[in-house]
């Protein structure tokens, strides 16, 4: 437990130290998950009693937009996830997304994006499917983009 606290403290301290240099944020993904934004990368984990997802987002495209005299951030990227589920041997998700980000309160940003995702899972047999997904996230930026 001590080592866990120590490591966590070091990581958080490091994050705050680098927060002035890169975008750093933590947030809530609105399908019961959390995420950690570091620069153009985002680690996300979505929890569920039966299915959990652990993934990585990459945001290579970020453009500032003004829509109806309000400033938005347009972004696009790719996402890949690993699925953990009681009913699966394994499962993976991959896809592309694009969306808008807006500061709604001080450093709190709300983002909304649309993506096309493909998933392959293995239960008794392998099964694949694709679909369009809306993702919403609330992110509190503690460094960089404030």
């Amino acid at each position, binding site marked *: 437990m001590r080592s866990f606290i120590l490591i966590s403290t070091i990581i958080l301290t490091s994050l705050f130290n680098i927060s002035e240099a890169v975008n750093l944020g933590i947030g809530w993904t609105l399908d019961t998950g959390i995420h950690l934004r570091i620069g153009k990368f985002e680690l996300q984990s979505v929890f569920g009693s039966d299915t959990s997802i652990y993934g990585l987002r990459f945001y290579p495209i970020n453009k500032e937009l003004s829509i109806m005299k309000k400033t938005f951030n347009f972004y696009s990227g790719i996402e890949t996830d690993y699925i953990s589920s009681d*009913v699966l041997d394994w*499962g993976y998700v991959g896809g592309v997304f694009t969306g808008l980000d807006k500061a709604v309160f001080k450093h709190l940003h709300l983002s909304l994006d*649309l993506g096309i995702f493909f*998933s392959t899972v293995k239960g008794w047999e392998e099964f694949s499917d694709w*679909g369009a*997904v809306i993702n*919403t996230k609330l992110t509190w930026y503690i460094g960089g983009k404030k």
Partner: protein
Amino acid sequence: MKNKLISLFFFIITSLLFISYIYSFQFGIGTRGFVQKVIEKGQEEGKIPKSKEEKDKPKTIYYTGKLDKLDLSQAKYLFLAPKSTTTSRSPSVKGAIYKADGTQQTEKTIFKIIEENGEMKIKEVNLYDEEGNRFDVDVHYIVKVGTGFISIALEIKGVFIVTTTTQVVNGSTQVVTSEEYLHVSEWGTAASTIPSYGYMDYLKYYKQYLVRLEDGAVFEGKYLPNDRNKKIYEDIYGNYYYIATWSDVAYWINNYYYSYSGNGIQQGSLLKLNTKDMSVQVVSAQGDYITQDIIEWEPFFVVDKYGNIAYMSTTGSGYKYRKTTGTVDGSGIVHTGFYTYPFSSYGSGLPPIVDNNRDAIYFLNKVSEGEYGFKNLWIRRLRCNKDTGYNIEITSTVGSVSDDVARACETIGHGKILNIGDKEISMLINSFDKILFPTIDLVNATTSYYYEVPFSEFGVSSDGWNEGFLGYQVVNSTKVYVLIKTEGSQQGRYRYTFYAIYPKEEKIEKIFYTERYEVLSQSWPLFNVDEEGNIIVTATDLDTGTKNVLKITPNPSDPGNESNISFLQQGTVEVYYLVRVY
């Protein structure tokens, strides 16, 4: 740039609205919602288990109850365990799958049966070739026999299969048997029970114990009334065809090696299936040796409802009859005694017969009299049941019958009991050129009634076996259907005609005929009769080339009308085989 991005963004949103295939159009659902939808869809297709418990458990249904209460529509693999299974063995079945050209593609364990927490479970059921393509082979039905044998049914489409079974004996794994591979098409149909004298290539059907399951769901939900000539038992897809089957029990030969030299079954090779609980017992015992003529003839063994077995001995002249204390409801059969009933001095006897109610076993024996052949038919009734105190009772009657009857018995050796009482017995005896219906007065030892139908009545030659008489089915004690094949009006086509014979009324009716449908004459049995007297037969529609299962309603007033036909199954008829792999 900004306008382009905005346009692109709204274009994407707008276009998505027109895609019906969209997941998660609910606020906040996100990736997890999408994944959940994928999983649910996979579950609907049966590729993903619906719970952890289901995932951990092999996709197998364990069942020890009544078959008719089991919903088999969801069953991919079915394991039927006898109630009194001892689970000390851990057998596995290995299969080698071959392509049609005979080249081996893969050889691996099809499945293993393992014991886990007191349950027998099956693992490894999918078959793939070297390229990862899944073979279209599904295990549909598995019966584990209490002695360590396994019977499985495979739905096989266009592949070869070789199976071997291993079992653990005294701690070491041993291969019980292995078989050469056969293409399923070579298995064809099991042997016919009715015709004889070479219209079938019996060598082709030496795997008669491979029970044919055909015409699935034709008789769904009920057993057909069975006598010795209706070897039908309802199974998950429609029917089993067993060598000797009644509504509550089926017997079949467990091991068979075709040989003209007369190899028969060996010890432990006559299996009994209790259809009430699907338990299986070995009912033959040390010293049993049943003739191989089960293929060319009716099975030479019979079993009454008390579990008593009688069969013709091939090692000595005479019948063997064994008293047992087991019943069809009992879990164990105890062989308590043997009895050998000698043939007549002349030599061969007739196969033993059991009456429709299986109350008693009958031995028919010919007695030579003078130089003019046989003029007597002896009938011995053997009973061993609670009324006899489970002691063997032999009721001996000498019946003096007509020469025709005795001669027919000599020629064919097959009789069927249509009706039997203490005072008389009505029989059907199939001769080479006629069907005889004698009724024998058991009290006065005379032939009290006699009716015969020569094949010429049906427009076929006297050599009916090879020409046009395909077979018969006993409908009930007063009615028999026969199927006749004659030249059709068009060249290359035959006319198949069903007749009903009412022996007591000495009446024959043409009840249906067709030239469009070619009866699958190698099917086994040739045709069936349901409880309403309708004929069930598999036939090829010569106009379309499709194989169909027909239900024919007898119509003596308009026998040629195709409206007498209804289709139980139309188009390609799936064929299932019960494959025994020990």
